[in-house]
């Protein structure tokens, strides 16, 4: 005999029914100023993640959804690694989280995986935090038998990330800094240009980084007719194709970065439209950031005041 289920409506909470697991931060560590790596418990995602894919996350109930790079995953441990660079409110807030904290929602792996095959010689370019996304692709291309030449670039010495990881999966690694504070002064495009000028046979270029960098790479390889793939990062909400906010102009046609991408043929991408669309909420983003900083400063002030009251032991 099954007891009847008694449904009561009196005590329904106003918070939504969830049912997602807890996405716990197992480990959090800064790789560079403003760039943090998180190891997150997400067994389903860890099992399925492939190079080139990303997650969308939301930190708390009032938070926005943002796409974030997956650097690596460990299916056995059921963890994924994400790398986040502080830019606006959400990324700053995320980078204030520590080991033991958790993230409300992590969904993925999203997007089509990188097309991994034995192309011959592949140049993998990682610019800034984009190196985190380029790294698993470089590793998979190496495993597939390619000769992998990697170029890692950053604004300065402190911001160079994952250099040793990239070196481990590359036949050669070149590093540049914009200000010359480490390795060679210059841009990643300078290194790629040198390779082309030296007559290096290049079968594929994979570039992940800031839009200006990816655009410059595309312009560099276009006249050489070198197949070039870039990973795009438009504004995104659901990540499943439902909203169309992430539409990018590819060869004059609308495609959705979340389901058709994020990787596209660099020579077909309309970068100027992407730059323009990514600026759509700049005013709101600045407002969010300012309020966040004010709140942070206030919290800090309170902490200082209270520690002073407690005898100034900080």
């Amino acid at each position, binding site marked *: 005999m099954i007891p009847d289920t008694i449904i009561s409506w009196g005590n329904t909470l106003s918070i939504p*029914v*969830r049912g997602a697991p807890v996405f716990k931060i197992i480990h959090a560590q800064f790789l560079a100023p403003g760039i943090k790596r998180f190891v997150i418990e997400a067994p*389903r995602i860890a099992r399925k993640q492939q190079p080139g894919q990303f997650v969308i996350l939301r930190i708390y109930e009032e*938070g*926005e959804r943002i796409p974030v790079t997956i650097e690596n995953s460990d299916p056995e441990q059921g963890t994924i690694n994400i790398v986040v660079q502080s830019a606006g409110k959400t990324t700053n807030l995320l980078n204030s989280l520590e080991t033991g904290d958790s993230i409300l929602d992590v*969904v993925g792996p999203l997007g089509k995986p990188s097309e991994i095959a034995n192309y011959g010689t592949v140049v993998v370019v990682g610019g800034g935090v984009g190196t985190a996304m380029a790294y698993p692709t470089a590793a998979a291309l190496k495993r597939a038998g390619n000769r992998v030449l990697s170029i890692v670039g950053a604004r300065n010495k402190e911001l160079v990330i994952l250099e040793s990881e990239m070196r481990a999966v590359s036949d050669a690694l070149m590093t540049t800094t914009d200000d010359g504070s480490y390795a060679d002064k210059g841009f990643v495009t300078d290194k790629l240009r040198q390779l082309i000028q030296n007559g290096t046979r290049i079968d594929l270029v994979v570039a992940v980084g800031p839009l200006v960098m990816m655009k410059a790479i595309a312009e560099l390889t276009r006249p050489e007719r070198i197949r070039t793939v870039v990973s795009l990062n438009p504004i995104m909400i*659901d990540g*499943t194709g439902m909203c169309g906010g992430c539409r990018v102009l590819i060869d004059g046609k609308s495609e959705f970065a979340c389901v058709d991408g994020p990787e596209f043929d660099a020579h077909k991408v309309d970068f100027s439209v992407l730059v323009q669309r990514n*600026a759509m909420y700049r005013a*709101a983003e600045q407002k969010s950031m300012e309020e966040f900083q004010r709140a942070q400063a206030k919290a800090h002030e309170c902490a200082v005041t209270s520690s002073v009251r407690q005898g100034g032991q900080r």
Partner: protein
Amino acid sequence: MSPTVKQSMNPVPIKDRIKVPRQLMPEQPAEARAHNFEEVNLGYDAELAKREAQRCLECAKPTCTDNCPVGVKVKEFVELIVAGDFLGAAAKVREDNVLPAITGRVCPQEDQCEGKCLLSKKVKPLGIGYLERFVADFEKNHGTAIIRKAPLTGKKVAVVGSGPSGLTVAGDLIQKGHQVRVFEALHEIGGVLVYGIPEFRLPKQIVREQIDTMRQMGVEFETDVVVGRTVTIDELLEEEGYDAVYIGTGAGLPQFMGIPGEHLNGVYSANEFLTRINLMKAYKFPVYDEPMLDLHGKNVAVIGGGNTALDAIRSALRLGAAKAYVLYRRSEAEMPARAEEVHHAQQEGIDFQMLTAPVEFLSDGKGWLTAARCVRMELGEPDASGRRRPVPKAGSEFDLPLSVAVIAIGTSANPIVQSTTPGLDTNKRGYIQASDETQRTSRKGVFAGGDIVTGAATVILAMGAGRRAAHSIHAYLTTGEW
């Protein structure tokens, strides 16, 4: 209760019932509601509900039920309202409909139950939707309900998508004793009920309560799972031990018009516009972090004539738009939106530009929308849909100044599940092929229904498919026969 007792409950003689006017739905005044997100309709009180229920002609063969995709026993629940047994009426509705507080608000009743009401031949039909809403709300405010569940079968069913069709499948199957788990890609359960339909038409608290009811009935939910990416249908069947899977992933990708300027800042798909507002609560920015463009004092237009289009433009009005236009390429007679929504939108001051279509979006040269170049249309011969085809009028071009344009012209199939499930047949438009009767797909143990099978339709049609699927999933799990 004998039939004679029931009849005596209705004090109005049958022949006089047609003389009782349909009871008006109390609503927020148009001037006030155009500036807030609170619900437009306020709901009947017990007195209004009883008076409206008394109009029912108690047909020997009620066509209202025949015309309801889930087969709600309208005559029976209305008789219980007449008798003053509101909780009994609610329980009667719930025998066939697991989401009565929702369908009572968003069903296009004029095309379903009320469309076939005998009263409608002479006067206005019985307010079946209003009565359904009344009993569902009454039950929530006044009672508890006892759900009699069948003995546990030990069978497990995975439901992919937590919109109206998936919730219907889950609600029906849990009562038959199966274990049910619903997977949702977004962070909140409810699908289109939470990301698509706005607060002023369907308060999210109502959706949450209905979902909480299902949770209390034993349905399990898992958010943040994109089936096809996070886990595949085959993994659910082979590795996670599910005996059957129901796919109710919804319509999917928004369509764009393919006209110049669609990438300008200020041009949204309706799905994005509504998701920002409803799911992400962008209208509460900066309390909520998701931003949207400030619409205060701006001209906003929606392109399309369906419920989604009206939801979008009425939201824009509430967010402060100075002018809010509907641009529809056919005439009002062809508009697919619910009649009540069109009426409400007109009351609120939405400017309907019928027989009008944009041909280009114009910019300020810096990537921001400034206007839509439009043409006026006239209706020609009927097309494949049976509606008269709109034909552009030569020389009718004009520029409509706009800051925001919302494209609500429909959706196409989301490919994620189909492309990751070998052997799952689709039609030439990419939707999943499923039997009209059983909702079975080409894969054993896999069923599908709702918009992912039919293309964009209504909440109640999706629920109807869910009902049929639950029935045939139960048969499959009981007999093992495919």
